[in-house]
């Protein structure tokens, strides 16, 4: 029975990982670049949520989701407009990699200097511990909420890209950056909105994760690697399968933790390697 609980909790944790990966996959799909500072922005959002929690004590952290997401969107938009558009415009795939890695190092060390290296966490109050029982299984409300939010976010993004006018513009820009310019689309603006969305999704996940586990300025690495593994396991550029990838990763981590109490992350990494060996294009990708 304990194993079944681990499995279910792993699925629910997977929802969070999937949200991390979603932002990374979105940016890669549209701009063909990977934001190596993804994890640092997630952690920065968590610090912002902690700051809000100290300003408004007694308010449930769930109310901070909207302001944190908005702030992350604004930051992503500015980041892309001011710095990353130049890197993308070089058409050398190395430039964005190196520039975003530089940003990650700067952000990580800035957070150490400004907030210190001590672990922080968000106090979820009653939400973090409340749960219900089904057939002898104890399941927390919080993981269920996370999974529901993750599925909603995936659905919303899917709808936005497939059925809205904005999604049409994004897909067209992704396919032919130069041609859409003749139709009055500004690729720089589209890219910036996409980066904003990516960081908004990731920061909501960062806030939700901060309710469950503590974080330090160095947690960004773990977040980035998790997001990356979700994308690779799910298959490049497939949003729906990124959710599956996230769940696989969450289960691997919690099962690993049960087998070997202090090395859960190792098993998640090993799962990634196994998938890379057997299905280099991910679960959804074509067999090679």
């Amino acid at each position, binding site marked *: 029975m304990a194993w079944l609980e681990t499995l279910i909790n792993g699925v629910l944790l997977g929802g969070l990982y999937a949200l991390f990966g979603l932002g990374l996959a979105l940016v*890669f799909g549209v701009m063909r*670049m*990977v934001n*190596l500072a993804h994890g640092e922005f997630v952690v920065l959002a968590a610090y912002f949520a902690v700051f809000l929690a100290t300003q408004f004590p007694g308010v449930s952290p769930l109310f901070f989701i909207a302001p944190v997401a908005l702030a992350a969107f604004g930051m992503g938009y500015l980041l892309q407009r001011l*710095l990353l558009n*130049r*890197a993308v415009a*070089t058409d*050398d*795939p*190395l*430039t*964005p*990699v*190196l*520039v975003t*890695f*530089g*940003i990650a*190092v*700067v952000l990580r*060390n*800035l957070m*150490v*200097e400004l907030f210190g290296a001590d672990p922080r966490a968000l106090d979820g109050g009653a939400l973090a511990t409340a749960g219900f029982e089904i057939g002898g299984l104890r399941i927390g409300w919080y993981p269920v909420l996370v999974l529901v939010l993750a599925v909603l976010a995936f659905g919303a993004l899917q709808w936005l890209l497939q059925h809205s006018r904005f999604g049409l513009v994004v897909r067209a820009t992704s396919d032919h950056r130069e041609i859409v310019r003749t139709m009055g689309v500004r690729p720089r603006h589209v890219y910036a909105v996409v980066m904003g969305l990516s960081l908004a999704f990731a920061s909501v996940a960062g806030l939700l994760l901060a309710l469950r586990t503590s974080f330090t300025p160095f947690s960004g*690495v773990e977040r*980035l*690697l998790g997001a*990356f*593994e979700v994308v*690779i396991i799910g298959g*490049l550029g497939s949003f729906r399968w990124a959710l599956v990838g996230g769940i696989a990763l969450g289960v691997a981590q919690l099962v690993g933790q049960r087998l070997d109490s202090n*090395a859960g*992350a*190792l098993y998640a*990494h*090993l799962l*990634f*390697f196994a998938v*890379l*060996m057997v299905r*280099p294009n991910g679960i959804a990708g074509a067999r090679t």
Partner: protein
Amino acid sequence: MRPPSLVPWLGFTAAALAIAFAPTVADGGLLRLLSEVLITLAMAQMWNLLAGYTGLVSMGHQAFAGIGAYLLFVASDRLGISPYWMVPVAGLGGALLAAVVAPLMFRLRDAYFSIGMWVLAEIVRLLVAKFPLFGGESGVPLQAVRLVEAESFQQNAFWISGAIGLAAVAGVYLLMRSPFGLGLMAVRDNELAATSIGVNVWRNRFIAFVLSGLGFGLAGGAHFMGTMFVSPDSAFDINWVVTAMFIVIIGGIGTIEGPLIGTVIYFGLRELFNTWFAMSGGWYLIAMGCIAIAVMLLAPRGLWGLARERWGWRGLSVQRHPPPRDEASLSAPLPPSTQQGRTA
């Protein structure tokens, strides 16, 4: 082809002599700093060999440095052999790990290769930290230091670091003048064109990757032998790669001079920050990161690239020049003499 200039070899000889006689004039602190400079130079050259000449940006080369260090510590202690002799073993360990993971890692392209390497380094770090043989999370001291003379240890460790630093620069220089180096640069500049004239892309990448693993293994082994203590967090520290990357970007990616200039700037700025401004390592990394971002966006060829454009400096250029025209070939148009791409 013009015969290679003698100037680079005179430079290498002068550097070798300087390293040979440095322990007679420098004190312990300065020797330690110089060891670190030379080890870092070797790592920067090796990282540049991969990123600058094959386009593979690795964020996981700390795995090779760490494996080299742990091999040196454990092997010399278990086998009772002087740690000096174990430095080549450390290099071989790095090369072997690189050769084993290459087929897997090469399935990932561009940024995904970068992060895939990072995951690899995390796996190796977590595995090393798990085994009591390696001292677990808290690390191990170099017990085999009992096998060597204490008085000459620092001097010998410095010479080993110096040899590795010199060999990295000279090795990359020789490699890039060889047909193999030409093939590497051809693949980087236009993979399709290079393949169509018979360059084996995979094999070239593999050799460069294994060589850089060898270099990081040697450098990691030598560095931690000098500090006489190794722990998973210090050996598999991402900052090995951060440092190499900043040096290469600021100096000039895809050139041999770039890492040299970058290393001088990196350590010059670090000493300035530490001693004059008394600022912490964190602020120093922030400053270096901002400089690297600015260089990447404003002058992607780095400082050496700027110098070469403005003053036409040649330095350790591996560029080839067509033979002087003779009367017979005047009728045929000459191929363009400049190479395209980052080294042009």
